């Protein structure tokens, strides 16, 4: 059959897939943590690229010592990164990071500032929904999932952490992670996860639960793997993160005088696990839950006000 289509034309199935992946593989991520806890490095490692340039490695960063202390109030900066890896669909990651979180003497406004940021996007979505003439192409900037970076202290959560996680976890899917986990011995790693998990339970902090909707799922025998995976995820919380800006060959590694840490190794950290959750197994789930639960809750609140 002579064909109007060039030889490299795709089948209908392939075209559908391409369109599907173009549309659905986006994710809006919020990272909450103190300056210096490794959020930018985490993003680099997550996306396997040096998006955030590590200035200190090229030695050009030393601060002008007379530089005045700039505005030290809490800010949230948003970046859009196209994560492209061979043999996988590209992902458009919109990542927002806090700057100057827990930085000042008095940090009682931090929780509100972050919640306001989240609700602002919900507002914009709501306003768009309520328009008579809606824009079908409007970008969805609502936060789909947040990571709260904790430092391993060998202690339970303190007042500040509890309050922030409660307020933020009410509004978005919130996953607690331990930043800079490379300093921990095996015992400390387990201890910190236990302490944080029990703190979360004791204080009823609304963090994301991988097993939450398990009962609703019609789990057949084939899904045993799926359930096991979910149980592993839940048991690994909070995820311990080790990240690096330094590349050696294929991998990102952390090089310390007493060893070399391959951050992709699952025995070392939960980075790979977290990546598979964010970019793979739960990418759609986070979006669905945000829209159907968190955003919906806000919507009800807002519309009931009127």
């Amino acid at each position, binding site marked *: 059959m002579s064909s109007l289509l060039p030889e490299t034309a795709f089948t209908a199935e392939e075209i559908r897939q391409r369109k599907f992946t173009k549309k659905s593989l986006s994710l809006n991520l919020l990272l909450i943590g*103190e*300056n*210096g*806890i490794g959020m930018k490095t985490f993003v680099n490692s997550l996306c396997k690229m040096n998006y955030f340039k590590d200035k*200190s*490695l090229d030695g050009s*960063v*030393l*601060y002008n*010592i*007379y530089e005045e*202390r700039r505005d*030290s109030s809490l800010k949230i900066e948003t970046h859009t990164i196209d994560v492209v890896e061979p043999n996988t669909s590209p992902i458009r990651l919109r990542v927002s990071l806090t700057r100057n979180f827990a*930085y*000042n*003497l*008095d*940090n*009682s406004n931090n929780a509100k500032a972050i919640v306001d940021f989240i609700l602002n996007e919900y507002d914009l979505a709501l306003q768009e929904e309520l328009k008579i003439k809606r824009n079908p192409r409007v970008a969805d900037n609502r936060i789909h999932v947040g990571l709260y970076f904790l*430092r*391993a*202290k*060998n*202690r*339970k959560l*303190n*007042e*500040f952490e509890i*309050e922030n996680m409660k307020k933020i976890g009410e509004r978005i899917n919130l996953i607690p992670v331990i930043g*800079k986990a*490379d*300093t*921990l*011995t*095996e015992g400390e790693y387990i*201890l910190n996860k236990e*302490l944080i998990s029990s703190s979360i339970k004791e204080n009823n902090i609304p963090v994301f639960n991988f097993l939450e909707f398990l009962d609703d799922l019609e789990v057949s025998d084939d899904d045993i793997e799926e359930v096991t995976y979910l149980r592993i995820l839940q048991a690994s919380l909070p995820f311990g993160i080790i990240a690096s800006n*330094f590349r050696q060959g294929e991998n990102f590694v*952390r*090089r*310390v*005088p*007493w*060893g*070399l*840490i391959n951050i992709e190794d699952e*025995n*070392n950290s939960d980075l790979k696990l977290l990546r598979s959750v964010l970019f793979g197994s739960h990418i759609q789930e986070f979006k669905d839950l945000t829209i159907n639960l968190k955003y919906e809750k806000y919507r009800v609140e807002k519309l009931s006000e009127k």
Partner: protein
Amino acid sequence: MSASIDEPQLTQPQKYVGFDTITTQIENRLLKRGFQFNVMVVGRSGLGKSTLINTLFSAGLAQSTGRKVSSEPIEKTTEIKVNSHSLIENNVRLNINVIDTPGFGDQINNEKCWEPLVKYIKEQHSQYLRKELTAQREKFIPDTRVHCILYFIPPNGRKLKQLDVLALKKLSEIANVVPIIAKSDSLTLEERADFKKVLQNEFIKYNFNIYPYDSDDLYPEEKQLNEDIKSLIPFAIAGSETEVQINGELVKGRKTKWGAINVEDVSQCEFVFLRDFLTRTHLQDLIETTAVVHYESFRSKQLIALKENASNPNRQSAPIQSQVVPPSTQPSQQDLKTQSSNGNLFGSTR
């Protein structure tokens, strides 16, 4: 410096007299009495303060493991907790007071969380002064003055937070402050070097009076040692109370899945430098500087105020307090007014 007198000529006795044994005589007296060292650890919780103290003195002086799993109440303010110990090494007895500051920097609002610390330090000076000025005073006044503050900076790699700037400023004005990069094993060597430069710039920028201080009556070797120390500060530390096997040897260290850090290896962390600095080279200087610089400054302010008070009889003076007042749960608003402003010599730290 004393008024210029002609320096007496140095004469060597023709035959051995034996007064050079006075150093041994002094030593024997001092050995009997024992030495007193008071060190305060400051920093938010979980930075390894107690572990470091235990590592420094190679003894369980501070309770670190117990706190990890206890359901201890969350402190609402900075507390002062003093632990006293007596260590003995080769007949030399060292009495140590470790002053812990739980709650520092741990609240949502940390304004003035250093005030209980400042108050405690000034109270010790105040107590010593009272005892000194008593007519029938004790032969040896027990020295509870804070000789050294170990200030723990979290390994963020960033400029100092406002809390650290203000606390370091206040504390370095009234005591010897030795800043430390806590848990420095979370930084690579390059990160550590950069962080140190950033911090050293911050120290200059805010004009902190970091120990050791310049002094004219130091030998050149001592001056050189001080210069070396100053270029090292803040010390990048990792501590450990447990021993691990590294290359067949049992050393103090931390064992992770990818290797073990030997805390006593100077190529891995600066614990040894800190320990030698605190215990082997500058222990006496820390104690002396506290007495000669910080206490003197407190004392002269107090005595000037007392004079003013005496010459101005209309001023009221507070009743003399004869015991250390434990810090109240709310840091007092009056703490930072200097004693001279309301003329109270004793006990205005209430």
